[in-house]
């Protein structure tokens, strides 16, 4: 599978993260989104007239919507990541996949405005972003009462991956994540999954690796 990718794009990261969690190798084709605006060149508009990234090509299949890419990855390599076990969870998964687009528009929009000076009404995008975060917080709180750590189920699904990147990067758009304890616990669970990878602004959990002993560096250096 070939991913047309931009390292700083939370949407592209969704696909890199999902593939890594599933152990699916991706062929990355880096696109000069900034400063080159390569995604708006005729070659790219022919691939995706919407002029957005990511784009995923798999054989004859060409996808430009991240929800579809997540479904495709999970269906082909990890059906456990689809909430197919009960109708409520399946519907909830769809709900969050759609909700993720609101996050892209609000939190993602604020981030583009604030970080790359894209034109836009930053204050209004931030307001919409906060509304979305509050909604996520209250639903995640309810999930905790049901002993479920993830959005649609007691295990992670593509819905979590669809929402995770833009939420964690909200501060890039000037939106604080400080007052959302359930969001904090949820993103901590995702960052603890085997196969988790980082993107700039989304750190690994350093506490999961051991505190090195002061002489460890010398030992490994000697081995080399």
């Amino acid at each position, binding site marked *: 599978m070939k991913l047309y990718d931009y390292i700083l794009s939370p949407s592209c990261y969704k696909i890199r993260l999902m593939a890594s969690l599933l152990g699916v190798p991706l062929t990355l084709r880096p696109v000069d989104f900034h400063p080159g605006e390569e995604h708006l060149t005729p070659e790219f508009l022919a691939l995706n007239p919407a002029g957005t990234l990511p784009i995923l090509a798999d054989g004859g299949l060409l996808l430009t919507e991240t929800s579809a890419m997540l479904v495709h990855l999970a269906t082909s390599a990890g059906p456990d990541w689809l909430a197919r076990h009960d109708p409520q969870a399946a519907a909830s998964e769809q709900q969050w996949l759609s909700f993720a687009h609101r996050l892209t528009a609000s939190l993602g929009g604020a981030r583009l405005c604030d970080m790359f000076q894209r034109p836009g009404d930053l204050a209004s995008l931030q307001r919409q972003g906060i509304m979305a975060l509050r909604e996520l917080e209250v639903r995640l709180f309810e999930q905790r*009462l049901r002993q479920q750590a993830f959005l649609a189920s007691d295990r992670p699904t593509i819905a979590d991956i669809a929402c995770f990147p833009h939420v964690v990067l909200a501060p890039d758009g000037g939106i604080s994540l400080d007052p959302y304890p359930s969001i*904090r616990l949820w993103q901590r669970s995702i960052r603890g999954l085997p196969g988790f990878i980082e993107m700039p602004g989304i750190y690994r959990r350093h506490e999961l690796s051991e505190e090195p002993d002061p002489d460890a560096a010398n030992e490994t250096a000697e081995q080399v």
Partner: protein
Amino acid sequence: MLSADLPPMTVVPALMPQGPFALWRSESGILSLQADRCPHRGMRLSHGFVRGEALSCIYHGWRYAQNGRCLKIPAHPRLEPPEAIRVETYAVTESGGLIWGCLETPAGAPPNFDGFAPLRMMSVKVSPQMIATSDEVDRRADGALAIELAGQHCLFLARAQPDGSTLLFCLIEEAAAPEARIAVSRALELFRCRLEADDLQKEAL
């Protein structure tokens, strides 16, 4: 902060009226409340990580003990950090499912709200005064605000934030069933909407 929101080996920004502080729970469960500014280059310690019984700063990995002393400077792994390097540390205790911090010498134990357990904390973009004077709440002798949400008796603890907003803790009767908790949590969202809308209207006048 709610006890349930802070598992072992995590650090969070505790939103106090004086600003954010780094609140963390060690692997063995011990709580610490410290200044949210690393003495080295000012990084917020609440962005750090907790390994074992120490808090590490995310910037250069300086490690701090529960008493605030710097234990390790990774750039000089064999150096014993001077005694003078320490992060300001404050009193913190846990009672009734809530974590209480105190920036001065505590005058006594934190208050007790018998029969109630914390449900959620949330930030509200209006002042604590505005919440306390809302028609929907009654101020109790112990300072808590009593309110009825989704047919349940609830208590509010309202704490001012440096930006004039409020951090609101909602407590619910201990015996409340999960469905009742969900109903109260949703009613709480509506209560916040009403307050914030009223506030906007007042501003407009």
